[in-house]
């Protein structure tokens, strides 16, 4: 093991280390009108966490991509600043004899997530365990879904949560990763067969069905259950990730086209069958039709974007509460991006979007440089999942597409989401590390 200095990563982390505590101080001054630092220990804890992660990567001679951690750190930092700015009683934990507010709880989850990320990034020397047990992973996925279906309880009409004593978890978040691993493994094995479509109708290449079947069955089951759980956001995310991986594996636009046609057909059927889907589409088309009822959240979100303007209202100066209630319900999860756009303006929103774009394009770079198909497809799947999740929720906030209740990775409040996102980063870093090592070995020969 040889130390690698990871200088790029360090230099990029520096601004975050300064700006997160500064954000906390500014927020506190704006909120209290007094020149006091406020809960600065949370900001310093966060800084310590990120620096610690960096140093451990350095210490273990990790050769993984050096832009990923700064991008994640920036997003998490903006998220933590916003969560610290919102009313702290929106969420939190009271386990182990501690009473923690929302931001403190989120920091705790960042801590757990970072450790998990490091363990995966450094510990996963060989991807055999992922690749060879694909049906085991598929079974784990089905098991997770079944557990949710049976043991889960509902929050806002979607049954996503399982209660595990001190904490509640969303198995769907972990399922995302399991599904990507399965698909990467399956597609890596069969991609030549899948690409080799002999049947054609006109310009449309018909997929060779027998090779598709196992994947489609599993995937169909997952989609059906996700719809049954009334978790449309997750269903959309799964489907998008699936199509993306299929596209990269086969390079065939026609498969994506068929997938999209199926999706539109499915969406149409769902629209006809389910009242809540119809309502959501109606609200999307004209939220102002019922601004105090069904359209309340989207209308309030639109106004928040408007208030933010280009430069934002300033940290701590947005209109977060109104008359004893939240101006936008679920501002700490589904609408955290709106809160950022309100207080930091279009510039802040672009910055956040930019960090996400950096993460996505570095993820794709890792995929392109991967030593084998499995690693490449895994990186594509993880990146697509993170990127699409970001795009879906932000586009939902801005009314570009109908709103679905999913989190903004690294920014929204929520332990399961934070944990899953960090696991995915851990996997990306480990793929990236192995590519670098592999390239070195080749050069040495």
């Amino acid at each position, binding site marked *: 093991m040889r130390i690698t200095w990871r200088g790029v990563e360090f230099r990029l982390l520096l601004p975050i280390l300064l700006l997160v505590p500064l954000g906390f101080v500014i927020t506190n001054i704006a909120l209290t009108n007094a020149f006091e630092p406020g809960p600065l220990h949370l900001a310093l804890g966060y800084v310590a966490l990120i620096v610690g992660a960096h140093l451990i990567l350095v210490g273990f001679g990790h050769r993984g991509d050096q832009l990923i951690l700064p991008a994640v750190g920036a997003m998490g930092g903006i998220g933590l600043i916003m969560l610290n700015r919102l009313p702290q009683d929106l969420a939190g934990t009271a386990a182990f004899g501690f009473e923690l507010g929302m931001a403190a709880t989120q920091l705790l989850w960042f801590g757990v997530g970072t450790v998990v990320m490091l363990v995966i990034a450094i510990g996963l020397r060989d991807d055999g365990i992922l690749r060879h047990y694909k049906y085991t992973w598929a079974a784990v996925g089905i098991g997770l879904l079944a557990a949710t279906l049976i043991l889960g309880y509902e929050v806002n009409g979607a049954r996503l949560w399982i209660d595990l004593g001190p904490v509640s978890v969303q198995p769907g978040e972990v399922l995302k990763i399991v599904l990507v691993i399965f698909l990467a493994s399956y597609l890596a094995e069969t991609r030549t067969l899948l690409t080799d479509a002999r049947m054609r109708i006109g310009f449309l290449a018909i997929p060779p069905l027998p090779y598709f079947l196992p994947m489609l069955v599993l995937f169909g089951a997952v989609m059906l259950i996700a719809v049954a759980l009334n978790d449309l956001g997750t269903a959309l995310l799964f489907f998008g990730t699936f199509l993306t991986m299929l596209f990269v594996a086969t390079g065939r636009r026609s498969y994506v086209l068929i997938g999209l046609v199926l999706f539109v057909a499915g969406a149409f059927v769902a629209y006809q069958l389910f009242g809540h889907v119809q309502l959501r589409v109606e609200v999307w088309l004209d939220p102002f039709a019922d601004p105090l009822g069904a359209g309340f959240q989207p209308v309030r979100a639109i106004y928040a974007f408007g*208030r933010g303007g280009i430069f934002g209202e300033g940290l701590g100066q947005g209109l977060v509460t109104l*008359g004893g*209630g939240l101006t936008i319900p679920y501002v700490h999860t589904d609408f955290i991006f709106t809160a950022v756009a309100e207080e930091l303006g279009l510039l802040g929103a672009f910055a956040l979007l930019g960090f996400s774009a950096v993460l*996505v394009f570095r993820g794709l770079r890792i995929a392109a440089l991967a030593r084998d198909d499995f690693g490449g497809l895994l990186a594509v799947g993880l990146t697509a999942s993170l990127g699409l999740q970001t795009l879906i929720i932000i586009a939902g906030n801005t009314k570009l597409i109908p709103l679905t209740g999913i989190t903004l990775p690294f920014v929204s409040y929520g332990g399961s989401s934070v944990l899953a996102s960090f696991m995915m980063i851990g996997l990306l870093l480990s793929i990236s590390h192995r590519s670098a090592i592999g390239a070195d070995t080749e050069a040495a020969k």
Partner: protein
Amino acid sequence: MIATNVRRLGLYLMLSFALVSGSLVWWQVVEAPALATRGDNPQVIAARRGLVRGSIFDASGQVLATSEVIDGLSRRTYTDTAFTHVIGYASHPFGTTGVERAFEDLLVGQTDPNPLRDLVNDVFDRQPEPRDVTLTIDKRLQDLAAAELGADTGAVVALDPTTGAILAMVSTPTFDATAISGDEAAARAPMEALRNDENEPLLPRASQGRYVPGSILKVFTAAAALDSGAITPETTFEDQPRQETEGFVVDGFTITEHDLGGIEPALWPLSEALQVSSNIFFAHVGLELGPDPFLSYARRFGFCAPLEIGPPERALNVSTSYVTANVDGDCSPFDGDVLLASASFGQGETVATPVQMALVAAAIAGDGVMPHPFVVRDVRAHADGDTPSETVLDSFASRGGTRVISSEAARATRSAMVDAVNGELGRVYAGQGDITLYGISNARSAGKTGTAQLGGEQAPHSWFIGFAPAEEGGEAEIAIAVLIESGGSGSDRAAPIAGRVMAEWLQLSGD
């Protein structure tokens, strides 16, 4: 290798990021200025929470709504529930409706009625003062109309046919909006109760309720047919007496007469036909007029499109009334002669708001000119007490009207309507709308009852439209529409209410 595909994927994702960025620019840059001043913007709501709202007075200076700031929260007090659906409410959690909404910016002083001062205030960033608003409605007439409706579900709309000033506009059941206008926590339970009340007290029936009009629509059919020349006051239909008993077969469907109450069928011209309210006669008139002219006259009278009370930029909305099926907010073309014949006597697919029907009466009363209705008379400086300020800052005069039929056609219709309440047959059949029954001896009224069949077991809607005084050459001072939901026959319930309200107005206005 997959690397090429990854590169292509990168392009698609870049496009998606650009698209999302575009939507952000849309809201945060392009739309932001327009969003900033809208009434349901939380920022505007927050700013108004602590602002004093101007008071609202009736035409005679009686106070109807005041506000005071307690603990930094502006609270509204409404003094008369008869006005609830006109004034609306200004509620912190539930937004604003009615006049409160239409005049929001002036009431809270966000804009100044004087554009120059508005500009100065803007330049110096000065907060303009709240303004008071005076309605055209007299509290005494409004209260009488509300009392007459009593516990019934219904509406009364009365207006000055010459100016279009609303004189009374009552919907029942009503509610006290004071309870839902103050503090959020306290307002929630009363609002919940109102929303769950099956009698729908939140619905402003006068302007938003749509009802089958029944026979009162014959006034429109007659006016349109007379104006187009399809009939004259002397026109009769040869087969009509026989069809009164045997039925009138249109496209294989038999239109039957309602119970004529023992009156012997005869060859009736317009006046008699309106007096006994012959469906058969008006079915003939409608068919004579034809589907396209029927629709185009309906549009002229205000059907088939939303109506507004007040100038467009400060209007109270009135739901659209229809003479045929509602297709995307417009009247569809007539689907066959049966529907045309039925529409001619106010059945078929016809639905109308009480405001629309009052305007039909006003158009006949106004010699063929339908007035543009308005309900706010002026804007004044804010008065601290219960007496309106003398300083009138802006006033809303009549905005005239639109000629919908010729003067001759209006006169002929008026004459038939006078007969419908005073004629030999009319008195027997439906004479209770006559104001001479209510202590007025020197003036006559004109009108028409309606008993709108709803099918099934439901009792019919009771309607009356009319106006007074209705003498030849005189000028009508009040036109009215009265509706009682499932109130039975028009002559039993609606006509006496209309008679009393019209009589009261003639007395109040000094006749």
